């Protein structure tokens, strides 16, 4: 029952995105432009980039793309339409569908991003599978944290500012853990030595998702 509801809502998100493609095109273009600016200002000038900086820069690009992509979750549709959803869908279904959909978007952004980023900036990663794991965990974490924050921000008057102010401090623990894990991946440390980090990141993702499910119903009722 609830699962079909979530599924329907995800399909609705995808269809909406597909109909006005400018949003997803805009996101990819945003990503490409940012990466290219980074290339011009770091790599092209100095011929080389320190691996730690390479990694940090990539996560910052992903963070900003995520805030942009997820921030519009609740504002792109009119308030009337949200009331319409409120009448037939459970709030848990709404937030979980948003989280799953945003995770898919973030996975797309991460993989397109790492491809394009490696293309222009080079790829000093030692253990690529582990790096991809950190990207997946990051996509889930970004999507789930930012979905709830976007829901909160949409209630305020100046939602773009609110979104930025609330999401950056709240995302830092996740970002620090991700930087640590991806740094190990860059150094080529094997997967088996990083189970602790992966477990903590996974636990943080789950905590955030569970709390989103508990708390979202309270922001959803107008």
């Amino acid at each position, binding site marked *: 029952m609830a699962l079909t509801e979530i599924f329907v809502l995800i399909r609705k998100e995808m269809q909406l995105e597909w109909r006005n493609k400018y949003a997803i095109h805009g996101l990819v273009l945003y990503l490409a432009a940012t990466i290219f600016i980074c290339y011009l200002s770091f790599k092209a000038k100095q011929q080389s980039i320190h691996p730690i900086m390479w990694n940090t820069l990539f996560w910052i690009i992903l963070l900003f793309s995520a805030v942009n992509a997820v921030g519009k979750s609740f504002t792109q549709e009119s308030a009337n339409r949200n009331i319409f959803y409120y009448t037939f869908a459970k709030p848990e279904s709404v937030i979980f569908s948003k989280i799953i959909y945003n995770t898919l978007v973030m996975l797309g952004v991460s993989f397109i991003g790492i491809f394009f980023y490696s293309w222009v900036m080079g790829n000093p990663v030692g253990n690529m599978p582990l790096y991809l794991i950190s990207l997946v965990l990051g996509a889930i974490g970004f999507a789930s944290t930012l979905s709830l924050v976007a829901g909160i921000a949409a209630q305020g008057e100046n939602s773009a500012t609110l979104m930025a102010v*609330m999401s950056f401090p709240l995302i830092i623990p996740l970002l620090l853990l991700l930087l640590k894990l991806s740094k190990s991946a860059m150094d080529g440390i094997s997967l088996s030595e990083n189970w602790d980090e992966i477990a903590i990141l996974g636990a943080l993702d789950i905590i955030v998702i569970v709390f989103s499910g508990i708390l979202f119903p309270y922001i959803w009722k107008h």
Partner: protein
Amino acid sequence: METLKRQYWKILSIILLIYTVYAGFNGQVPRQPILNETIRNLYFHVTMWFTMIFLLGTSVYHSIQYLRKSDLKSDLISSTYVEVGMVFAVLGLITGSVWAKFTWGDWWTNDPKLNSVAIGLLIYLAYSLVRSSMPDEMQKARISSVYNIFAFVIFMVLIWILPRMTDSLHPGNGGNPAFSKMDLDNRMRLVFYPAIIGWTLLGFWIAQIRIRIKNLEQQNES
């Protein structure tokens, strides 16, 4: 007599704090390398963080109460506890900064615990921004309660899990002399535990006065 019975914990707070200051400056402390006499800061710095966590925890309890019962009083109490908790956070930062100047040689060092607390302050500054951005009382209370609970969860991850994953300059981390089981001897415990209780009671006392002032202000307005 009846009022005196309800006020006994305030007297207890005063007695404990006088004891803390007296015994804290005059009591015997173990001689530790690097720390020397500054070990006494345990009674005035570490206790601030304990108080802050207790105050923020109480605030989260009242936020949950608000979400359950929609009583605006709970929201007022909750936001006041956050305010007072932040006062103790700033006090903790100041006492820590003075202490760091004499042990580590700098007012601010790149230490995971310091950074975590700075991020924590940002998280709760965003809380006050969220509150001020909502014009409607009920909406403000609901949204800020949700944010408060979510922020507390993230903040706990930030101060309990992250600093344990990296070496810290703090006593007890990374091979620094510490107040761990071996070093924190019983003479210090005799002051440290009463100090925690004393400061915490003081924090709650301040919060109660603030709540009463706010209540009176609201009564005057209406």
